[in-house]
């Protein structure tokens, strides 16, 4: 199929359409709005449901209702809007029904700004909503990957009766790149045994996230966690670059991983033996991959567009056995490849340590910045 030049947000929307999404509910928020706008045209054209809700609370609960019917449904938003949706996401997780959420991250906390950031990592990966649940979180680094991971998100959501999140940012959402779209999938014609569709020809069903009996609730908690173990066993995805002979490693997800790759290529051109690991699934996190490289490399540089949220997961995975350095831009600023290259130079030059916290060293180095 021919490649098309598409804006990230619109490519995600079209990918969802082709993955068979039957209902989209959303609320305008920059830098995500093109996704909603695209759906407002595309969904009615195909006879599928589109509602611009009164708020993110409205939108996520429309998703909740539609998801109870077993059909493929989604919403999208950006950081502050996603915060508002977390109540509903927790209910959806607690009801064990699939949905796809797209978070086009922007600067924060609070109203922040509308520039690209990655500070929703904890909000998405480590919960956000109340109670014990784990959403599957996929982190693309290009428009093409946004398309591919959106389709995958629908499949994984269905497979594990789970919330699946596509975690992009203002940069990936707004940029235009050539991409190949998937073929149009036929809509689902059979629905799971839990779908609430009206009781015609069968026993009645109900869906809820309430378990007043604590022992029933605990049973459900166990079920969710055991299902998550399956996700961890089967669905870890990541990309490696120049890792065969790497003495040093840079790692970052999404946009910062992509910027880091440019820096790694530049370092390689200088003869520095550095590789890159870019997690595709930030949840489940590729723990084993990091645990393995500890044995092979002299240092790891974590690059993010937040204050070191994935850094904590890298530290946990590597158990402080190898020196780790950290570099980030925040507030809606995308790091330049040169900045990352400087950090690679610093790491290679040393001295490196496993003492102290990488975030503290980074903050000390940047003490001149107000």
């Amino acid at each position: 199929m021919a490649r098309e030049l598409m804006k990230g947000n619109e490519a995600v929307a079209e990918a969802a359409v082709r993955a068979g999404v039957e209902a989209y509910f959303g609320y305008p928020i920059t830098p995500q709005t093109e996704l909603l706008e695209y759906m407002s045209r595309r969904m009615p054209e195909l006879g599928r449901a589109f509602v611009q809700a009164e708020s993110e609370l409205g939108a996520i609960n429309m998703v909740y209702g539609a998801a109870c019917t077993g059909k493929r449904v989604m919403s999208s938003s950006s950081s502050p809007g996603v915060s508002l949706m977390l109540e509903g996401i927790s209910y959806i997780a607690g009801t064990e029904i699939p949905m796809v959420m797209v978070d086009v991250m922007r600067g924060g906390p609070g109203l922040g700004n509308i520039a690209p950031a990655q500070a929703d990592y904890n909000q998405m990966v480590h919960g956000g909503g109340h109670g014990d649940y784990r959403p599957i979180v996929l982190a693309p680094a290009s428009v093409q990957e946004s398309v591919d991971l959106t389709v995958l998100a629908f499949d994984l959501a269905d497979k594990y009766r789970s919330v699946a999140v596509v975690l992009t940012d203002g940069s990936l959402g707004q940029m235009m790149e050539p991409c190949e779209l998937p073929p149009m999938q036929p809509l689902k014609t059979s629905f799971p045994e839990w779908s609430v569709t009206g009781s015609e020809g069968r026993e009645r069903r109900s869906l809820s996230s309430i378990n007043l009996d604590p022992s029933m609730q605990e049973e459900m908690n166990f079920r969710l966690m055991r299902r998550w173990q399956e996700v961890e066993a089967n669905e870890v995805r990541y990309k490696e670059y120049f890792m065969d002979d790497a003495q040093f490693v840079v790692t970052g997800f999404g946009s910062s991983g992509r910027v880091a790759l440019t820096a790694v290529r530049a370092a390689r051109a200088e003869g520095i033996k550095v590789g890159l690991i870019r997690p595709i699934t930030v949840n489940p996190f590729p723990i084993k991959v990091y645990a393995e490289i500890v044995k092979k490399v002299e240092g790891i540089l974590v690059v993010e567009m937040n204050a070191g949220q994935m850094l904590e997961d890298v530290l946990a995975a590597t158990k402080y056995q190898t020196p780790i350095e950290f570099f980030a831009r925040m507030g809606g600023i995308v790091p330049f490849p040169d900045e990352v290259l400087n950090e690679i130079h610093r790491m290679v030059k040393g001295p490196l340590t496993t003492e102290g916290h990488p975030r503290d060293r980074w903050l000390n180095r940047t003490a001149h910045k107000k």
Partner: protein
Amino acid sequence: MALNESEMETMVYERPEALTNGITHYCPGCTHGTAHRLIAEVIDEMGLRDKTIGVASVGCSVFAYNYFDFDFVQAPHGRAPAMATGVKRVLPDRIVMTYQGDGDLASIGMAEIVHAAARGENISVFFLNNANYGMTGGQMAPTTLPGQKTTSSPNGRDVETQGYPIKVSELLSTLDGASYVVRRSLHDAKNIRLAKKAIRMAFETQVRGLGFSMVELLSICPTNWGMTPLNSLQWLEEKMVPYYPLGDYKVHPAVAEIKI
């Protein structure tokens, strides 16, 4: 020996098919049971049981899905109209109803109910107004009357600091998207019959695709009001009905033409 006709048993009152055999957790005297029964009778009469999807809310009726014998989902606090929107938009040939109390609908869920009505969502809403938060133990609700004592307005609702009650039917009747909005009461046999007719009209509105319908049902909460059921019914009639006048607040001309 054959019984003659006058000796044969005749069933005059039975449990509607749309209600389960479950025993409700509602307090003695509570009008939730009445409202459940009226809705179930109408669903039976219209043959809608296997096409209906209910949306339960948060409050005393959180377990409504245990008492109604058809498909149900259960919404977060206040969000039932949004959830119902989601269900109805992907299953437009199903009958979708919400069952909500006044804390759920008129306080935390005000945005969802107003916008569902404004969009003319083709759903039916049954709104139980008992002037307080029942499940959490009788706190002040948006519908609590001026001067009414509750556990969070112990000296009586002071409108200077706690504001005025919200008249939901009147408010929603201003929206062009609302097709059938009426207020009824459950305090005596005559009004219960009128309430049932209104519930029928709400479903008839939806079946015909005529848009948003809501029946507000003035209800009692003997436990939290600290009154006997009988005194509660009297209090409803004497105090609530004058503040919340019964009547039809919005009947779209197309709905007015419906003949049952």
